[in-house]
């Protein structure tokens, strides 16, 4: 168990800067998920922590002790690869025992530990099989087992579930969460799947273009995304964005766009902005004075809920409704929505940064 600290960690591949500078503080026992689109540098961060890639600048510390110049094997971290990376010429037992044998643990201790971990992961009956004789889910469990046997200070996971089908992914996600509760180790988990991030994480770091966009709990990221990128990345279906104009209106502000007319009691920065609305924050209303009005395009029922796709002005939007409510709306009909003031997310049109209302006069 250990804390992990990254200070100004950067990486260039040749002349290309992949990571300008990452600062990150991960407390002991945290399940931290690093999430971001493909190619944003997640794996690179993980590999720098593992020591598989040398940082171009900055410092990595585990438990307050710098490991920047240490070899992977001296860092006491374990990594589960996206590709599993099982040793194909070794049985499951040999795969699990490999690290223990390398560090010359007594044979009896190795046997006991392998049996224990095999039991924990439900691999008991598979110990004598070779990786090629296992299913995808079993292989992934072996890969995790190989990390667990060593009791490393830090676990690193690089998209460990991405090659599995959806059903299995859901199952292993739950197992992983249970595993973390059981082991209470520090885990850094990389994924491009925000649902995985939301369900697993104590802390989420959203990465884009090698830059940390936001670091917080899943709840914080969902409720108060720091910028438009995070707002659009976290949440499913994704947040709707409308270009709006904000003008002064008495003591408060007025927000306008085609199909939108909304008075806000607080004073917001005037000028162009982007309004973000989560699909489940759009509440259908029969009130002719409801602030949003649009046209229904397609209704997608999904069991107890339905996704209503429509347009406000020219902007496509999605509303998440219960199936009963959605049934009332025909394609091409008009729909009005109410929105709670606290459901509004406003972003700067250019920088994408979150806007805040000016403080009420003190």
């Amino acid at each position, binding site marked *: 168990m250990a804390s992990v600290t990254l200070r100004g960690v950067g990486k260039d591949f040749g002349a290309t800067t992949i990571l300008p500078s990452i600062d990150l503080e991960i407390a002991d026992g945290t399940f931290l998920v690093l999430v971001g689109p493909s190619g944003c540098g997640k794996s690179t961060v993980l590999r720098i922590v593992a020591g598989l890639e040398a940082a171009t600048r900055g410092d990595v510390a585990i438990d307050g002790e710098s490991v920047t110049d240490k070899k992977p094997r001296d860092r006491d971290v374990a990594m589960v690869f996206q590709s599993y990376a099982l040793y*194909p010429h070794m049985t499951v037992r040999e795969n699990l025992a490999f690290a223990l044998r390398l560090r010359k643990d007594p044979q009896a201790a190795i046997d006991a530990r392998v049996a224990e971990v095999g039991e924990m992961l439900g691999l008991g009956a598979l110990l004598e099989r070779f990786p090629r004789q296992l299913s995808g889910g079993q292989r992934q469990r072996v890969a995790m087992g190989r990390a667990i046997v060593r009791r490393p200070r830090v676990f690193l996971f690089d998209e460990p579930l991405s090659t599995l089908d959806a059903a299995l992914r859901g199952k292993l996600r739950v197992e992983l969460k249970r595993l973390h509760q059981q082991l209470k180790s520090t885990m850094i988990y990389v994924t491009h799947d925000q649902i995985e991030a939301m369900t697993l994480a104590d802390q989420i770091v959203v990465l884009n273009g090698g830059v940390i966009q936001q670091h917080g709990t899943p709840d914080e990221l969902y409720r108060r995304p720091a910028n438009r990128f995070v707002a659009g990345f976290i949440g499913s279906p994704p947040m709707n964005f409308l270009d709006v104009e904000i003008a002064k209106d008495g003591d408060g502000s007025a927000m306008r766009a085609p199909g939108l007319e909304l008075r806000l009691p607080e004073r917001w920065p005037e000028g162009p902005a982007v309004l973000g609305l989560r699909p489940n924050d759009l509440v259908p209303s029969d009130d002719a004075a409801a602030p949003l009005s649009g046209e229904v395009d397609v209704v997608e029922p999904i069991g107890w809920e339905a996704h209503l796709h429509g347009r406000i002005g020219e902007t496509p939007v999605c509303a998440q409704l219960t199936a009963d409510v959605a049934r009332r709306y025909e394609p091409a009909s008009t729909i009005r929505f109410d929105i709670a003031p606290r459901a509004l997310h406003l972003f700067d049109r250019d920088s994408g940064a979150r806007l805040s209302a000016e403080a009420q006069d003190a």
Partner: protein
Amino acid sequence: MEKRASFGRQALRQLILLIVSVIVIYPVLWVVQTAMTPAQEFRREIAVSSWSFDNFRDVVSTKDARGRWLFGRQLWNSLAVAGVTTLFGIFLALTGAYALSRFDFPGRETGLATLLVTQMFPGVVMAIPIYIILDKLKLLNSMWGLTLVYSTTAIPFCIWMLKGYIDTIPKDLEEAALLDGATRWQIFTRIALPLARPAIAVTALFSFMTAWNEFILAATFLNQETAYTLPVAIQRYVESEKTAWGHFAAAAILVSLPVVALFFALQRHLVGGLTAGSVK
């Protein structure tokens, strides 16, 4: 399901196969027949006559001027040269190929290209310069000299072969081992080597055959009967005024046996899919 071919097409197919088979098998049959015929004459047709193993006995029991067993000596020369070339070549080619596949170092690209260029010259072209070198090193008529020459010919090719194969072994495996606490050498011996087995087998076979069958260089560098390798020895039976065809053919068969044996010994390593199941 594919429709069954008509009778006419089937017959044509079989006929073509038959003709090709005959063309392929004829030389082998000819050599076998010639070896089994006591008379040392050249015959075109293959016909069963009185067969015997006399030629084989004659070849195997060849003695030198002082009555020592020459064939045994030459067989040992061949085995030693080919064996040492193989072991030496595999060791150097494996370590070299691994480094070229896994490490980035100055001269890597140039080195690889240079290795390829050396393969473009036929061995004969280099015979004279190599002769001079061996002469200076006092390695003419020596097993070590020949081994050195064969190794330098075989290693570049082996490096390319092995590198090509090692390139296909997922890097993730080695990184996993690195995190599991393995040193570079442990990764090489415990991960890379077992997985490169098929390529090592092919390379071993290639090195062995290169050394075992080589004639021109051996004939250039060896001029003492006791230093001959078998290909040079065989040539003795084909002399300009009279050729002992029977002995020649028998010797040819004998010389090819170890290669066949080696092939069967290595065959079980020539399997695909060794990395199956390791990475998705």
